[in-house]
Structures are given as structure tokens and as C-alpha cells.
């Protein structure tokens, strides 16, 4: 019996910025349909790992496979990493949608413009069809009536939901979230997490860097704890959060108990 290809395979990945090693020999499989959460203290490397999976950062060594296809570099028989052409990288990346901590909406376009841009420019769809599809995504995140507003006219939570709709518009198989609620006021995080819960319930493969331990514990199906560039634990939440917990994880979680993660106390 062959196991199905994981949506994402991270194989022996290390990453250094100059002399500083921020990821140390990380290996991780994320099967399709999982909600994989990356947690850990600041500077643990969790955002860097996510950005490597999005090919916004290049790994120093190791490889990353998306749907079984190598990302960014083609493996040669000799073991030498050859850089893929930009077109090849784009093709592999088309499986991925990315949501940023700072939303990164384009300020000169309306919500509808942001969501439909890639459909028009990259997929070359006619304007009417692109906007109809974009409208469907905006409806999904509950912002149809804000379609013609510019980002500056939307709240942080609304901007992040537009950003999610923009990433969904190209119908990726995998969605990456880089601290999607960290830039939001506490009362606005709920609406973003609700959209993410809906996506998870629909079976979307998701990788989420988050400080929302409550979200990770309740929606996550795979919890990965990173510390100082190393992947210390990886497993289903009931296993990772089960008591007694290893000391390093316990220390980390202690700081979260009074921040919506009391279920783990």
C-alpha cells in the first residue's frame, strides 16, 4: 500500500541569514486536509518556515515539495540544487495561497479589485467573469457589500478577510497563514478566525503560524512546536497538549493560559 503524497513535505530544511541559523534540519509532512499549526516563541523560526514553504525565503539546504513537486529548486542527480525557472516556480506555487500578518492589500485597488486582480492579470479571465468569481469569494468571507471600498475604508478584520478572499480566488489547494490575527485589535480577531474555521471545515489544507493557542487547540489537527529553529514536537493536538507536557512547551503555554487558551490549563 502506498501512502498518498503529502500536500507539503519539508525535508531536512535548514535556513541561515548570514551566520545566524534560524531553521535547523526541519522535516515535516503535512497531509492534505490537515490544519497544521506552527506555534512557538518569537524568533523560533515558525514564520521563516512558512515563508520558505511560500518560497518567499530560500532554504539554505534541504528541500520542500508541494504536492510532490520540488519548489524553487530542481534536484539534480549529483545532489546539486539547480534553481528552477521563474515559470516553473510559479507553476508549483499556484497550489498555494498566502495570507500575511500585515494583509498586504494593494491600496490603489478596491476590495473587488484586489480579489479579481490575479484572475484578470495572471489567469487572463475576461473582466466580467473575473469580477463575478471575485464577488463569490467576497461573499464567502461576508464582505460582498464592501466590494467597492478601498482598503483604507475597511477595518483591519475586514482587510484581512479581503486578503483571504484574494488568496482563495485562484482556488489554491493549500492556504498559508502568517500570524493572520496578530496585527488586529482583539475584538476583530474573531471574524478572521471564523472565516478560517469555515475553510478548515471545508477540508482546505492549511498551515497556520499563530499565537492563538485556543484556535490551534480547537481547529488544528497537527500541532508543531518550534523553538530556536528546531521542530521540538509535532503531532495531533491531543498528543502535543497532553499532560504532563515537556518543560519547554509547558513554559511556553504558561504565558498563554490567560489569553484564551484556558482549556489547556
Amino acid at each position: 500500500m502506498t501512502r498518498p503524497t503529502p500536500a507539503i513535505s519539508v525535508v531536512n530544511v535548514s535556513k541561515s541569514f548570514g551566520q545566524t541559523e534560524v531553521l535547523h534540519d526541519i522535516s515535516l509532512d503535512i497531509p492534505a486536509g490537515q490544519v497544521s499549526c506552527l506555534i512557538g516563541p518569537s524568533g523560533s523560526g515558525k514564520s521563516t518556515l512558512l515563508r520558505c514553504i511560500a518560497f518567499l525565503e530560500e532554504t539554505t539546504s534541504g528541500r520542500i515539495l508541494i504536492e510532490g513537486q520540488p519548489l524553487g529548486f530542481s534536484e539534480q542527480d549529483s545532489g546539486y540544487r539547480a534553481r528552477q525557472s521563474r515559470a516553473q516556480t510559479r507553476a508549483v506555487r499556484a497550489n498555494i495561497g498566502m495570507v500575511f500578518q500585515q494583509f498586504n492589500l494593494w491600496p490603489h485597488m478596491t476590495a473587488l479589485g484586489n480579489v479579481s486582480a490575479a484572475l484578470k492579470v495572471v489567469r487572463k479571465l475576461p473582466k466580467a467573469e473575473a469580477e463575478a468569481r471575485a464577488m463569490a469569494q467576497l461573499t464567502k468571507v461576508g464582505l460582498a457589500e464592501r466590494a467597492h471600498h478601498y482598503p483604507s475604508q475597511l477595518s483591519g478584520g475586514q482587510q484581512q478577510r479581503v486578503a483571504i478572499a484574494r488568496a482563495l480566488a485562484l482556488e489554491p489547494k493549500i492556504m498559508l497563514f502568517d500570524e493572520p490575527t496578530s496585527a488586529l485589535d482583539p475584538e476583530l480577531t474573531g471574524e478572521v478566525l471564523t472565516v478560517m474555521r469555515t475553510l478548515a471545515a471545508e477540508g482546505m489544507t492549511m498551515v497556520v503560524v499563530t499565537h492563538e493557542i485556543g484556535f490551534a487547540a480547537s481547529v488544528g489537527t497537527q500541532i508543531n512546536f518550534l523553538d530556536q529553529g528546531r521542530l521540538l514536537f509535532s503531532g495531533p493536538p491531543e498528543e502535543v497538549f497532553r499532560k504532563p507536557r515537556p518543560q519547554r512547551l509547558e513554559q511556553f503555554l504558561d504565558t498563554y493560559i490567560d489569553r484564551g487558551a484556558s482549556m489547556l490549563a
Partner: protein
Amino acid sequence: MNFDIGVILAKGPQILSGLGVTVLIWIAGTFLAAALGFVIATARHYGGPLIGAVLAIPVEVLRGTPFLVQIFLLYFGGPYIGITLDPIPAGLLGLSVYGAAYYAEIFRAGYQSVPPGHVEAADCLGFSRGQTVLRILLPEMALIVLPPSVNMAIILLKETALLSLITVPEMTLTVQAIGSQQYAFLESLVVLALVYWALVELAGTLGRLAERYFSRYRLALK
């Protein structure tokens, strides 16, 4: 001494012809300067450190020497290295290259003004570099580059007066010639000042309208 501006204005058709040459060289020169400056800034933005260092040299030289010296070198020095140009092409080329050095710096600031995350978002959605430049970077930097660009256009307009010294039949040459013929030097200078000023005001007004257009998303009511 009588001050009679009428003797200058009586030569209306001649003045208009000079004005036409000035406006033509100014508009074409500014357009070419901005386009060339944008190409240089883009090459420096996406090219490696080597390309950046190589392109920095002409930019520094052109910004570091007077425009008058540059056009004299081009027009009077050019023939020694086989570049013989008529006055108008020489003037247009000189103005475009001189302006390009400044526009390259304006667009460099424009590139730096766009948050890298906005480009990362486009990368993740499969935009090519060209699509990212045209659809994201240029419209986003428009607000930043517009005021200095209009300013530069105004400076270039006034620099066209120097082209009279390489015998380009533009407005300054034309009106000063009229002044000499009519013994009305002062009047010719006043007319020149007023016409340049009117053109500058026109350019400034168009610039403000363009700024308003590109800032519509900032002005939109909450």
C-alpha cells in the same frame, strides 16, 4: 527710455513659432527623460549590485555637471567623435538625458516607497515581474513620484531656454532676436518671463489634478 511691450507682441507669429518649438522639446524631452529614468531605476531595482554600480556612474556625472556644459559638449564636442546633430535633435537628446538622471532618482525613491509585502503578495499570486511593475508598483508609487516629477518637468521647461545657445529656434532665441532687431531688450525679457511663468503655472495645475486622481483612494471617505 520708452517701455513699449507692443513692439515685441507685434511679432506674434514669430513668438508663437518659438513657443511651439519650446513646448515640443519640453513635452517630448520630459516624456523621454521620465521613460529613460524609469528604465534606469527599474534596472537598478531588479539588477544586481554590478548593474546598480554601473548605472550609478552616468547618473552621478549628469547630475554633477551643468546642463549648459553638457549641451555644449554634445553640440560642439560631438562632431569630434562623429556625432553631428542638428540643433533641435541635439537639444532634445541633451534635455532627455539630463532629465533622465533626475527621474532615475525619483523613480528609485518610488520603488523604495512600496512595502515589500505588496510585491510578495503579487509573487504569491503568480504575477510576473512585468505585471508586478505595471499593475502594482507603478500605480502605487504614482502618489510618491508625482510631485517631484512635476517639479522636474518645470525645471526642464526652464532649462530649454539654454538651448538658445546652441541655436535651437525656441522661444528665448526667437524673442531675444526680436528684441535686438527692435532695440527692445527689456521688453523681450519681460515677455519671456511672463510666457515661461504661464507655462509653469499650467504644468503645476495639471500636476495637481493628476495628484488628486492618483490619491482618490486616500481621499475616499471612510
